[in-house]
């Protein structure tokens, strides 16, 4: 299980062993990571699971598809390293991934 580090909006660091086969959003939800709302539950329909991926890890992820890209452009404070966590599947290559949760989701 790769270890994922979430930095919550208040600055709290959460290290979580993430099971393979689920999404980053689901890991956050199971562990009640603050700031990840994930209203639609992973349907790429709400843009409330927005996170910033540590730039050193960005290349390990497959790039966002059109639907996700369109959502991100109007998310709260989008950055070049913005992603929707529901679209990122946990794989062994994500060991040590650092994810920062934005101060708000909209």
């Amino acid at each position: 299980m790769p270890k994922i580090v979430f930095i919550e909006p208040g600055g709290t660091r959460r290290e979580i062993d993430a099971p393979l086969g689920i999404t980053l959003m689901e890991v956050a939800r199971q562990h009640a990571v603050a700031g990840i709302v994930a209203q639609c539950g992973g349907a790429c329909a709400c843009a409330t699971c927005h996170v910033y991926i540590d730039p050193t890890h960005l290349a390990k992820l497959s790039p966002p598809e059109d639907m996700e890209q369109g959502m991100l452009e109007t998310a709260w404070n989008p950055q070049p390293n913005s992603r929707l966590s529901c679209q990122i599947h946990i794989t062994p290559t994500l060991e040590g991934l650092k994810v920062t949760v934005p101060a708000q989701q909209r």
Partner: protein
Amino acid sequence: MISTILIIGGGQAGAQAVDTLRREGFAGRLLLVGEEPELPYQRPPLSKKYLAGDMAPDRLLFRHQSFYDEHRVELHLGVKAVRLDAAAHRVTLADGRQLTYDGLLLCLGATSRRLTCAGADLAGVHYLRGLADVPPIRAGFKPKGRVVIIGGGYIGLETAATFIHMGCEAIVLEMADRVMNRVVAPAVSDYFAREHRAHGVDIRCDMRVVRLEGAGRVERVVCADGSSLAADFVVVGVGAAAVTQLASEAGLACDNGILVDEYCRTSDPSIYAAGDCTNHPSLRYAKRVRLESVDNAFEQGKTAALNLLGRQVTHDRVPWFWSDQFDNKLLIVGLAEGHDRQILRGSLESRSFSVCYLKGRELLAVEAINHSKDYMAARKLIAERALLDPAKLADPLLGLKEAV
């Protein structure tokens, strides 16, 4: 300060209220009563991935048991609340237990409307609302079997897409002249009917079911035009009604849902309600609405929780909805009622387009098909009561925000 909060209903609204109450520092006793035996779970995948068998049950859960233990949430699951005594601040459960409260939140949800024609109670006739509805449907499924789906709304079309994915033959019978007629524009209905037909779904509109036939188990669906359709099983998706009995019998004001104000408060000041069961004021549209949507349940659950803690927060949202059918994502934001013009942005052939609803120049609602940009932009514009230029709006090369 209230010391005991009781939540009736473990759906999206109830789960969100639990989360909000503990996150916001409520340290008192917190009880959640749910009629279903499972921990609170998400319903949307039930007609999609979960029905297809592509999703493990624990992925449906909002939180695992450890969350409720850690946050001291007393769960009473698999038991129905049968009586509410508002004067005594007491709820009686079906097993006779009595729970008292200082603050009460009703998240009673909605229930599937039932067919009333002859044969409606035959075996093999299914509804899809909760987790327990899924195994019987899957048990009736066989490869190359045939399902007849009654109702061409969200549930009917989403399940049709899933059954095709599972290798079933699917017929959808819709009473109106087009699918999803109550929720989308004619162009969007046309697009989805075309998509379904291209995948092999037999969509038939203007079809009124008069009876179901079979020897103990459904075998045929008979329509008003005389057609008789063989079926291995039937799924019915003809809408839902608010669950209000507990509230109405307790004397709370109800009218197509439990009546609440913008604070999610019922006619009893210590009782709140949230989600599909409420009839509430929409501040944006200046009218009362009853919505069946994840967003509404989530936000009302949160708002009610905050108000139980004395925060005086209003529920003021632009409603939104989504549906997944085959590889199409339909995103709807706003309420179109009262519009005087529809504008199509893009072409159906491009498989990515939107329909904008205007009242004068005011944007009321947008239906976006595989077009998240228009959808996201519309959420902001509608909330801001933006006035748009219809000529610019009709140009799909201009972004929605550039049409002001």
